[in-house]
Structures are given as structure tokens and as C-alpha cells.
């Protein structure tokens, strides 16, 4: 059987790759994908903790289900806003979003 640690290593890597990507990417869609990585690492965490540490209960699984649903809704809104930006400035590069600074 695969030990819990391996899953946790994967999820931790996903989490910090996501944070790194969010900070360094210069394209709104790439930033959104990085955030999705963070949210997915959280889902893995919940499922793994539930499966290995508290096998008798279902709280972690349910949390994951809800988290997936809600993050889908968030992504839909984010993409709608990004499309709106594209319509306004024909571009979704972060460096062009500089109307407001400091």
C-alpha cells in the first residue's frame, strides 16, 4: 500500500508550485491555472487525511466535493472577467493592467 506521506509530498509540491506560479506568471489565465493547482492540492489533502487517519467518517470527502464545486464556480466568474478584459484591451497580459498603481 502507498503510504500517506507520498500523497502529502505530492500535494505540498502542488501547493507551492501553485504559489510560485501565481507570483511569477504574467498571464491572467496562467495565474488562474496556478490557483487551481493550489485548490486541487487542498482537495488531495482532505481526501488523504480522511482516508488514512479517520477512515470511519466522511467529513473530508464531503469537504472536497464542496470545494471542487465552489472552485468551479469561482473559475467560471474569473474566466468571465478575463474575457471581459480581453474585450476591452485585446490582451490578457498582466503588464497591460497598469491603469492603477500605487
Amino acid at each position: 500500500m502507498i503510504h500517506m506521506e507520498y500523497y502529502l509530498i505530492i500535494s505540498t509540491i502542488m501547493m507551492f508550485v501553485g504559489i510560485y506560479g501565481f507570483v511569477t506568471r504574467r498571464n491572467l489565465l496562467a495565474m488562474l491555472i496556478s490557483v487551481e493547482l493550489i485548490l486541487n492540492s487542498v482537495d488531495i489533502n482532505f481526501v488523504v487525511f480522511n482516508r488514512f487517519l479517520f477512515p470511519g467518517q466522511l467529513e473530508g470527502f464531503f469537504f472536497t466535493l464542496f470545494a471542487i464545486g465552489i472552485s468551479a464556480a469561482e473559475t467560471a466568474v474569473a474566466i468571465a472577467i478575463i474575457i471581459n478584459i480581453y474585450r476591452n484591451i485585446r490582451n490578457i497580459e498582466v503588464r497591460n493592467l497598469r491603469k492603477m498603481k500605487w
Partner: protein
Amino acid sequence: MDYTSIFTLMRAEVTLTAILVLLFLYDLLAGERARRHFTAVASLLLALQAVATAFPAASGELFGGMFHYEPMHAVVKSLLTVGAMIVCLQADGWLRDAETRHKQGEFYILTLSTLLGMYFMIGAGHFLMFFIGLELASVPMACLVAFDKYRNYSAEAGAKYILCALFSSGLMLYGISFLYGTTGTLYFDDMASRIDGSPLEIMALVFFFAGLGFKISLVPFHLWTADAYQGAPTAVTSYLSVVSKGAAAFVLFTTLVKVFAPMVEEWQTVLWIVTVLSITVANLFALRQHDLKRFMAFSSISQAGYIMLAVIGGSSVGMTSLVFYVLVYMAANLAVFGVLSTVEQHSGGRVCLEDYNGFYRTNPRLAVLMTLGLFSLAGIPPFAGFFSKFFVFAAAFRSGFYVLVFIALLNTVISLYYYLLIVKAMYITPSETPIATFRTDRYTRISLALCTAGVLLLGLVSAVYDGINALAYGL
């Protein structure tokens, strides 16, 4: 389970959902003439809802402890509804524009959805409920920020807001997942007894705090605030700065005090640093702003820092002073934003500090109202802001945070300087092209009257503070 208790304990949520459905149907079915009274209908319903919510019932819980009801929640919820109502009144002029007229219904529905989310966040007794409430409060909020979709500013602000909101909720969930891993439960009550302050839990606390810090826009996590505030439509900015922030601050208090009670040392240290940073950095950045919406953004960050002074003690006095501070802050900030948005409406979008030169000569009444609001924000007696600041300082002082209170006091002096910059522009600095004299519409006048009454009376009528104090609970 006894289903009748849903209507007593979840009274606020049930009535707000009913109003949501009603307004949706009104938007769908009402004719052109009836739609002219949309604001009146919406605000009246909200006012009724606030009154119906305000009377506290006995505390209890629903759904096996997932939803909690305390008398204090009733007060906070009805406070938030009043804030939303005032925002709706002030938004009327903007919503009558040719560009936004057809979207009036959407504005109310989105606003009330976020309000419903805040209700669930406040009433949550389980992290799942808390998370759903938080997301319900922040996803429609992104739509509101990007509401003026043909203006570049609004779209840009919306993108910045939604990405930061997503990122922060990701961080928070990561923290919650480790809390679940170490304690095996997600119920607030059970978790409080199983937390022992192990290093993993400290990490979880930090992630969780970072997530909520984004929502309240405390300093290391405040970078989205100024842009979102400047780019959003002014009505939405005032909603963001007052209602959304007040709800998040209250929730931060309850979660820290209830769930993280065994780790009180750790979160007090974190909060100490964050409070000092918030107040100081925000004050210094506010000094160099010329756009007043951006200026108010930094002002609201430093006000959030002052609210954290009430949280840090974790006492029931702290809770009272927090709710009182939010109430007073709401009155003062909405007065300022009311003037800002009506001036923006009538002058073709002028929101800079220089535009307000000579404002007193052309619109003396609005200038006086704005001055009252600014004085209250700065904490000058005898306005309500002085008393709310005093109670917050007293709460922190009583818990032994002497240095913190001293730093905060120094910062009030700095904040006084930049609030008075606006007053100086309005009264003293002459201008070639002042904002022309105009008459405000009656909805704005009602809202400004409410806010001014709040600024003048809340501090002097001690029954308000005593009433809140009677319901408070703490560590």
C-alpha cells in the same frame, strides 16, 4: 429535528432569501413604471428585514451544530443589513444611468447574495459552512467589482479582486486541511477542545489567518485593496469597505476566540505585528494619494488595523468594542462615500483631491456632512468615532497591550493630518473650476441623513453601547 426552529434561529437567512426571490421576480415581471421605484422597494424590504432580525432570540444551534445562533449574531446581521440598505439608497443615482439601468436588478441580487454569504459565515459552526459562506460572500462580490464592464478600470479591478480572492481562499483551505488532519473534526466546538498547538497547527493557523487577512485587507495581504477600491463603481467600493470588512472582522474574532482558544499566545503575537503594520503602513500610503477612492482604501486598511485592536484581547469587552466600532465606522464611512458618489454622479466622474478645492463655496451642506464623516473617522470628539476608538483602545489596554495602544495612538495623529487634507481642500484652498452647485436626489439625502444621525448620536447615546455589551461573549 425540529424544523420550526429554522424560522426562529435562521430568521435572518430565511427572510433575506425571501427578499432575494422577491426582488428577482420584481426584476423579471415589473413594468417600466414600477421599475422606477426599484430602489424604494429594495430598501424598504431591507429595512423591514433589519428590524425583524434585530430582536435577539435565545441562542441555539441547528443541523447538528453546523449553524450557530447567538444573540450577538442577530445584532451584527441586522447591522450589516442596514449598511447594505444605505448602500442601495446611495447607488440609486448611479443605477439610473443609461449604461446601468437595465442591470439594476442584478445589482441588488448580487449585493444580497454576498450579504447572505456573510450571514452564513457569521453563523457557521463548521468549517464547511464557513467556507461556503465565505465564497458566497466573495464570488458575487467580484461580479459587483467588475460591474461597469465597459470601463477598463472596473474590469481590471474585478480581475485583481477575483484572483486575490481565489488565492486567499486557497491558502485558507490549505490551513483548514491541516487542522482537519491534526484534529479529525471540522466542527468549531470539537476542534477547540482537540487543538494542542503543535507545529503543524501553528502552520495551519498562519495559512488560515492569511486567508482571512486578505478579506479584511490587513497589511501584508492588502495589495489588492487600493486597486479594487479605485476601479470598482463607487457604490460597490463603499459596500466592500464597510459591510464586507465588518463581517470578516467579526468572523475573525469569533474563529480566533472560539476555535483557536488553546493557541492564544501564537495568534496574539501574529495579530500584534499585523496590527502595527496595518495601521502604520496604510497611514503612510494614504498620505500620498490623490484619488479619493484610493485614499479611502488606505484609510479603510488602517481602520481595519484599529478593529484588530479589539480582537487581540479576545475578551467580551473586545467583542463589544468591535461591534460598536464597526457600527460607527459604517456610519462615518458611508457618509463620506455617499458624498463621494453623488459628487461623482453630478460632476462627470471627478474623484480627485484637487477637484474638491472650493467645494464648500458651491455645496456647503455636502461639505459639512463630509467633514463630519471625516472627523468621526479621525476620532475627534464629540463625534462617534472618538468613542469607538476610545473603547477599542481601552479593550486592548485592559488586556495589557500597552505598546500596541501607544503606537496606535501615534498613528491617529498621522491619520488626522490626511483626513484634514480633504477638509482643507474643501474649505480653504481656492479653485478656478470648483464642482458646480447641484441638488442631490432624495434617496441619497435619506441615506446621508441616516449616516449623519449615526455620526452625531451613536457616541452620545450610551444605550447603544450598553445594549451591545449586554449580548457580548468572549474568551
